[in-house]
């Protein structure tokens, strides 16, 4: 039995934000599904840790802070032709809207919106994305389905990203490039353990999820595998909600 429509064997896939959290787990999952992974991240030491765990050859790592255009250029110039990309690099903030200054919005949009949108634009324009390639953006239910107090600045950046995903899906279909997003609920990564919300509050919040827990990075990585694989070759412009039932 070798039937596996989710295989990524023979594909070359870029994963940004691969130095931690969803990005690292996704890079490792793509590797285990047979893809040659290009791992990009901001923290070279932690990126190296991810890189060392990758087994499929040829593998590649590029340290880049995608909020800097020079770093985007550096990444682009080192990219082989791609069959797929998962743009995970991002950040979050918990801030009531009345404190959401232009500066706070700019900081969030720089990394969550402008960085992936610019990278996506240039990967398409420079034809780094091969015909039939699949791009996965990491959005959030906070941008599309669930509007919890304190998540407005973050959620707005993800809503904007999700809108670009749909437009890109339409426009890039001419090259059969598919563009989808994943909208996770709360996922247990370093991002949510920065202390604005206490561990007790997080534990309490997790109980509000119908499936009884927050997501693990693997829950999102497995969705990305589906969207990258030929199993989803008739799917584009879709926001895949993976949230333990929270937004039902």
């Amino acid at each position: 039995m070798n039937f596996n429509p989710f295989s990524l064997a023979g594909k070359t896939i870029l994963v940004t934000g691969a130095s931690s959290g969803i990005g690292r787990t996704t890079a490792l999952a793509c590797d285990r599904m047979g893809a040659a992974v290009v791992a990009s991240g901001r923290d070279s030491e932690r990126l190296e840790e991810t890189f060392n765990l990758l087994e499929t050859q040829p593998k590649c790592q590029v340290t880049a802070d995608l909020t800097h255009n020079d770093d985007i250029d550096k990444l682009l110039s080192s990219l082989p032709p791609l069959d797929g990309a998962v743009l995970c690099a991002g950040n979050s903030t918990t801030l009531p809207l009345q404190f959401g200054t232009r500066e706070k919005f700019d900081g969030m949009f720089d990394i969550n919106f402008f960085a992936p949108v610019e990278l996506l634009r240039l990967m398409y324009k420079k034809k780094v994305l091969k015909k039939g390639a699949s791009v996965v953006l990491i959005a959030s239910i906070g941008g599309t389905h669930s509007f919890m107090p304190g998540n407005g600045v973050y959620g707005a950046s993800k809503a904007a990203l999700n809108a670009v995903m749909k437009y890109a899906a339409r426009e890039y279909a001419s090259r059969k490039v598919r563009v989808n997003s994943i909208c996770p609920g709360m996922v247990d990564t370093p991002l949510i353990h920065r202390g604005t919300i206490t561990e007790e509050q997080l534990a309490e919040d997790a109980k509000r999820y119908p499936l009884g827990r927050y997501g693990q990075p693997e829950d999102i990585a497995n969705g990305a595998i589906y969207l990258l694989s030929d199993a989803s070759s008739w799917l584009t412009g879709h926001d895949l909600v993976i949230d333990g039932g929270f937004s039902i």
Partner: protein
Amino acid sequence: MNIQEFIDNFAAQFDDTDAEVFNADTKFKQLDEWSSLAALSIIAMVDDEYDVIIKGNDIIESDTIQDLFERIEKKR
């Protein structure tokens, strides 16, 4: 940092609790209006007004407004 100014900034995050209720000894988590959003507002106000990043635990471990004020002073 001035404690009275801090109390005023603290009180400004509340909509239904009278300003007179707030003083240095107020046990703020016992207020009816206290909520997780109020906690987020206090954290954001402290960042905004005092350039100090406090965490949820700073709030949990403070009983009174004075307690929180002292924690913030130490971080400045």
